[in-house]
């Protein structure tokens, strides 16, 4: 079967064609979704190299194990599940190695000119925006893998709670819990940028040197401490 004819097939038909031996079907299927899968992998791992490795591992796994797809979920859900699992495995392995400065890596890619950034001509705004991005990424990196994956899928990629639950192979309540606990941990870390986001004077942040105090210590009594969240955040 040629690629042109495959383009009109839906995901399940493509996967079936691949299982039956069509050499081009999996390529059409994976190409169809790989940009979204890349976005999920990049934000889940927080590191472009790990994301590329995870995506490659996931693609190989999906290619070779396509026959194990049971058809009880959408193909794209299955693909996302394979990718997220590969990412979580990467994160687990990374924790056994030396700590890496992940957000900088991402920003390095962002500096290549292909990143879609908010258009602004004001260098101060641009600097603040970059600083906020770095802070958000750094805060995101403090979350445990499963919390992070849930937030990436729900808050960053816009998947529904139900779809995310299918991807992560857990209950919807678990996804809600992970998201809520993850956000609760992020909020105090982003306090300075929260003021900035409200268009209030960001204090020292306006000069590229935000006060580190509020970013690590919650100002509100209701916010759970980071250590508590890490330890008790996962069901």
């Amino acid at each position, binding site marked *: 079967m040629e690629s042109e004819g495959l383009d009109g097939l839906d995901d399940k038909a493509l996967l079936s064609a691949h299982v039956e*031996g069509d*050499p*081009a079907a*999996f*390529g059409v299927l*994976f190409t169809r979704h*790989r*940009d979204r899968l*890349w*976005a999920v992998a*990049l*934000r889940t791992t927080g590191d*472009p*190299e790990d*994301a*590329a*490795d995870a*995506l*490659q*591992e996931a*693609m*190989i*796994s999906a*290619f*070779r*194990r396509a026959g194990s797809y049971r058809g009880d979920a959408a193909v794209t859900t299955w693909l996302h599940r394979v990718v997220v699992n590969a990412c979580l*495995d990467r994160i687990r*392995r990374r924790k*056994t*190695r030396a700590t890496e400065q992940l957000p900088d890596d991402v920003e390095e*890619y*962002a500096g*290549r000119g*292909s*990143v*879609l*950034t*908010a258009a602004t001509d004001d260098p101060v705004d641009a600097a603040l925006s970059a600083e*906020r*991005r770095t802070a*958000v990424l750094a805060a*995101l990196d403090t979350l445990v893998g499963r919390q992070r994956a849930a*937030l990436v899928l729900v*808050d*960053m990629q*816009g998947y529904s709670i139900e779809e995310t639950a299918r991807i992560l192979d857990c209950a919807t309540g678990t996804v*809600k*819990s992970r998201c*809520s*606990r993850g*956000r*609760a941990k*992020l*909020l105090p870390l*982003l306090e300075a*940028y*929260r003021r900035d*986001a409200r268009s209030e004077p960001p204090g020292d942040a306006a000069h590229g040197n935000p006060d580190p105090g509020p970013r690590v210590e919650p100002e509100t009594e*209701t*916010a759970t401490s980071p250590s508590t969240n890490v330890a008790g955040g996962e069901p």
Partner: protein
Amino acid sequence: MSDLTPDEEAEVTRMLRDLPQIPMPDEVRSRLDDTLAGLVAEREEGAPSNVVPLRRRTWPKVLVAAAAVSLFGYVGSNFVQTQSADDASGGATSAAPEDAAGGDDGEVKAQDAAPPRVLEPSTDAAPGPTSASEVQKLTALVDLANASRYSRASGVLPTDGLVRGQADYDLRAYKVARDGRCDRPALAKGEQAYEVPLGKRRAAVVVLRPLTANSSQVDVYPCNLPILPIGSTLVLGLR
């Protein structure tokens, strides 16, 4: 659940959603294309190809290559020494249990210069059953030792037992069971997977993939993710 108000939750969500989308870099795109092409070729040919580069970073390749060269030399010379000692004593004893079936008909030597890494039986002796199993054992030994070297730097695999226990490896004793501790790798017809204990309740997965009537590829995988090999060797004379 959290103590955040709905507004606070929405604010965090907005900050996350405001992060820019970073398109897939061209280098990653082409890497995936290459890998996919290799997978397709592998399936069409019915044999594995080099479709799974562990990482396109230079240092692990250098590390593995250096380890391969040094270990082949070390292991190969040790093995030949063992064979020579056996020959001198009439083949009555050997480090390899299979030697009892005919220890003098299959000298194995390491080829440490020609890429890819190849273990090749000597040309003056037809590879009989004994030499084949010795090659099999030696391959596992070398690859696991390579994995050990690699894992020391990368943390991909635990190192305990990899080198210490290498003399005891006989792949056929470690066939992966359905209820084994390691994940089962994807196997094509004729391929065999082995769960090789590393000590301290850990293991690696070694897969033999026949290429032709007298050659096989040996891939070594981490126990918990038998997708990307951390060591590979082409073996001649293995039947």
